């Protein structure tokens, strides 16, 4: 089986079908990444599509030294930044309604688990998108802090600080929710 980097090099050589293999390999993870940031299925799918269009457009800028996934997520990061830049001040007032509609589609789960995750999702949506993103990115298999630094264009230590602060804030929001307020 070809590695991602080999596929990318073949893609650069003009074998465009290799993009299909990369798409099949990464669409699910990329979609998950975008979904956890946007909580919107349609938008996330569009964003996945956009990442692959950009891979095609900018394939020549892939040098093949670093890992493909690092390069791919830096494109994904830019797509996400663009997305939120456009919404900016308006977005995180109250996103809960959208969230509920997302959950409506899902089958019934264990209620307790449901409640906990419902809370987690609400807490996530109260974070600024940046923080949702860094948390989600940090959970992606195979991406280490050093690589996150490359994706986000900052130092490894800055990444660590940001992960920590985002998690801390998430925990604060989450804890407050745990206090029953009915």
């Amino acid at each position, binding site marked *: 089986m070809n590695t991602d980097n080999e596929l990318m090099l073949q893609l650069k050589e003009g074998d465009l079908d290799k993009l*299909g293999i990369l798409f099949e390999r990464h669409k699910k993870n990329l*979609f998950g990444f975008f979904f956890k940031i946007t909580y919107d299925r349609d938008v996330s799918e569009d964003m996945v599509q956009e990442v692959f269009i950009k891979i095609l457009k900018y394939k020549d800028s892939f040098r093949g030294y670093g890992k493909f996934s690092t390069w791919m997520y830096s494109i994904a990061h830019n797509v996400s930044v663009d997305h939120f830049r456009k919404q900016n001040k308006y977005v995180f007032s109250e996103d809960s309604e959208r969230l509920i509609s997302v959950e409506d589609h899902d089958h019934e789960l264990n209620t307790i688990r449901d409640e*906990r995750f419902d809370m987690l999702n609400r807490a996530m949506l109260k974070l600024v998108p940046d923080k949702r993103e860094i948390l989600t990115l*940090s959970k992606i298999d195979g991406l280490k802090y050093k690589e996150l630094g490359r994706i986000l264009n900052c130092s490894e230590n800055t990444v660590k600080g940001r992960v920590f602060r985002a998690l801390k804030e998430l925990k604060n929001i989450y804890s407050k929710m745990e206090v029953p307020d009915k």
Partner: protein
Amino acid sequence: MKKEIIEKWMAEFLSPDISEGEKEELKGKLIQSGYDKFELEDMENLYSMLDEIDVPETSNKLDMNFYRSLELYKDAISDKSSHFGAFISSIFKKKYVLRFTYSLTLVVFGWYLGSWSGRIDNNNVKIQLMSQEISQMRQVMIYTMLDQPSAMKRIKAISYADEFENVDDKILNTFLDTLNNDPNPNVRLAAVEALSRFPDIQFVREGLVKSILKQESPLVQVALIDLMLKLKEKASKKELTRLLENRDLNYSVRSKTQETIRLL
């Protein structure tokens, strides 16, 4: 203890990339600097819950859009390198590259502009822009394909464009252009067929009527005359009458024209 160092330890503590031993060590350091053991556990639990957030399945639409775009892109550029494209490529290549670059620049520029105007709008703008970019990308491919020396590719381009949900004026104008200028009669026929779906658009109707006298192939003439009858386009009577003045007009086309004028 400096805040940064604690943050660093915490992040490392949470990372899956460290060994158990390192983890214990970090835990000890964190507890020493004032962290509660349970607090750490809570953090850890919450962080691991992030892995389990329900993510819906991706839809078929995603795959469809992706592969469609890829096919279009491939079609658009394949002729550059294949034996086919070498044909007349010396003439076409420059124009093709120029046009493609130009269109891409437009896309990027439009995107940039969009990103500015999007700030003052709500989040739907983003969605629109995104699908806009995708559809612009497709349109660029359509134009590129219509520039191909292969008639087959040009027909394919028209049938692709025909499937678009939002066909804009630019595409329709391109079809009219194809109808009047494409060297291959079958490509022109495909353009007539594609355009016949937009009888409510005034400039398309007018373009079709005007095109009657521009056609030399009886195949296309017949298709247009048929269409005039179907659309009950009385405005075409003048063109049809003038068509009859052409002495070289094909016999079948002549009788069809006369019949159509009568029925209109």
